């Protein structure tokens, strides 16, 4: 396993410029319990990286480290180094608020604010002062909804509450909301787990499109989904990264026996 890590590091340092986020020895502790054990991972720009693994393996925990959502949990402690464009995001001089504007997040269950569709999308740009005046804000809202593939469905009812949309629409609204602050990385925590298959297909398609503009990290429990949407895959097991690599490779030719048994359905 050490050699594996060394390989990754060697590989990574070779293509420094081609790495968006770089995680070194990331460990997470909940009180005394260790949830993540010295994880190393490089996330490539404008690609979809899937984090897979059995439940409780720490993939969500890791995802939440990437925009410091773990800060909201009192007993949670993170060690190691996570660089975003070569800047340590856990550096005291970094403002989490700015960080989360750069690294947006979409959650497992769609969680629109109980406000209008417009307000949902406009909230982010507003608190970050991204728009000068109403017209510009409306522009941002429109652009984000278009990118999230929701515009055609909601353009006539922007004043209606976002909670009134269907589950799939709500999740795309949450994606639009994340896009609206023009992040560079979007983290998605099992974004389709609460959706029906049709809505899932739409969201997956959207993720594929978003790749053109954003770096995406997605946690999923569905290997099919990982295979469908991602280019890179990292397999987590019991708080460790067992294997990373291109999705094709991991799914067709896993190096680690654990990965293989997970993919073929023996553990999970």
């Amino acid at each position: 396993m050490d050699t594996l890590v060394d390989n990754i590091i060697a590989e990574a340092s070779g293509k420094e410029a081609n790495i968006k986020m770089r995680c070194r020895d990331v460990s997470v502790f909940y009180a005394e319990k260790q949830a993540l054990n010295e994880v190393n991972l490089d996330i490539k720009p404008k690609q979809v990286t899937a984090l897979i693994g059995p439940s409780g393996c720490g993939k969500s925990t890791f995802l939440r480290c990437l925009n410091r959502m773990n800060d909201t949990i009192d007993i949670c402690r993170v060690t190691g180094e996570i660089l975003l464009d070569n800047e340590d995001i856990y550096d005291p001089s970094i403002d989490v608020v700015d960080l989360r504007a750069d690294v947006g997040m979409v959650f497992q269950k769609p969680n629109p604010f109980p406000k209008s569709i417009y307000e949902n999308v406009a909230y982010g740009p507003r608190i970050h002062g991204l728009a000068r005046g109403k017209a510009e804000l409306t522009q941002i809202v429109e652009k984000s909804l278009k990118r999230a593939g929701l515009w055609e469905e909601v353009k006539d009812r922007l004043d209606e509450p976002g909670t009134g949309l269907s589950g799939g629409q709500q999740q795309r609204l949450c994606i639009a909301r994340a896009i609206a602050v023009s992040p560079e990385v979007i983290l998605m925590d099992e974004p389709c787990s609460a959706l029906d298959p049709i809505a899932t297909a739409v969201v997956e398609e959207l993720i594929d499109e978003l790749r053109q503009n954003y770096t995406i990290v997605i946690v999923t429990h569905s290997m099919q989904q990982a295979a469908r949407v991602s280019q890179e895959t990292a397999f987590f097991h019991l708080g460790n990264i067992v294997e990373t690599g291109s999705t094709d490779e991991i799914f067709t030719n896993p190096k680690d026996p654990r990965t293989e048994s997970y993919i073929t359905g023996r553990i999970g």
Partner: protein
Amino acid sequence: MPSTALFVLLVFSLIAFFAARSKAFAVAGDHIGELHSRPIYHGAYTTLTILVPGIIFWLLWNFIATRWISASISSQFSETLSSLTLPQQEGFIRDVMTLASGGVATFVDETKITAAQMVAEIRSRQLWIGGSILAALSVVCCWFAYTRITLKMRARHRVEQLIRIMLIVCSVVAILTTLGIVFSLIFESVRFFGRVSFLDFLFGLHWSPQSAFEGAGSEAISADNSKVFGAIPLFAGTLLITFIAMCVAAPVGLMSAIYLSDYASQGFRRIAKPVLEVLAGVPTVVYGFFAALTVAPAIRGWGESIGLDVSSESALAAGLVMGIMIIPFVSSLSDDVINAVPQSLRDGSAGLGATKSETIRKVVLPAALPGIVSAMLLAVSRAVGETMIVVMAAGLAANLTINPLEAVTTVTVQIVTLLVGDQEFDSAKTLAAFALGLILFFITLALNIVALRVVQKYREQYD
């Protein structure tokens, strides 16, 4: 005009807000995204930098100013003051203050006018000095914040830090209240126990504070005062009335809770629950009126009709009505407790062929016992601290009796009687009220702590 100064400060800080905001816009220019904090936060930061020190200074200054004035009065007019009694001194100072602020005092004489003139003079000087310092302070603070508006300045952090501090202060108010209660009670009680011995108070059998000797030289014969502040009759009276109240409230409240949670139909419950809630929402003074107007005469008439001698302010009447007041309290607490007993226990009992009442009596109630006990303790603490019903329906005479048809008095009644009306604040009588309050506070506190502990243990058992 202290408030005018604050108003001016407020206006100034508001102007500073807009100035700072537009400066932030100017600094950012076209790159509004470069600004760490949005302009509104720069504005708010500047405003707060002016307001917070300003207000703190002004409060301190006012505190100093009042001390300054009273110090000057007592030094300049020490002769006049020394010839007056304590309440007269207070009256003198109050009159002087009223005159100085242009009001009309009841009795005006030469000295008061001179004193008032002096006070007015000092005040205007204070306003001048304090106002100048305040103005200087504000300008410095404003300059400090304003010059710091840059792209990198973390105005939002500072503003949020301050909001956080204010939130903390608000949550600490609850602790300060408790401290305030304990402080005021203990402080006055200590003074009381300086005059009346603690043991005489706690174990004395005779309570008649109206006959306490007051006035000059009262300290010399405080031994006699000790004899009239024996609180046992009050405790006995409180216990008697509480006991009667619980005799009413415990069975009725508990049985209603059982009936409503296990027997009543949905429709019946929908009517009965609000009835109990209304009963809980009726102000205690209304219960007191009800007790005095309806219940007490009824009990008296009933007693006389069977040849009993019933006092018109009997413990029975007060206890009965207090019991009614506590019924909803007992029933809602018991309801929670009974509902917390897991359904599996009931199912187990029913599965053995027990009837509903057998299940309730043999399984649910024993399982819920700790919770019910704590509900009863809380109800007792309610009854002990209840004031208005007993003030209006129980008597003032401190009889040491367990006959519910006689008049008894309670701790709360005596606190009210000792403190209502124009009394000299320093007398043993008023101080006794605080001593009683202290005891009341600790008894109810102990009951609550024990009850909450018991209920917590009980909850853990089933969670």
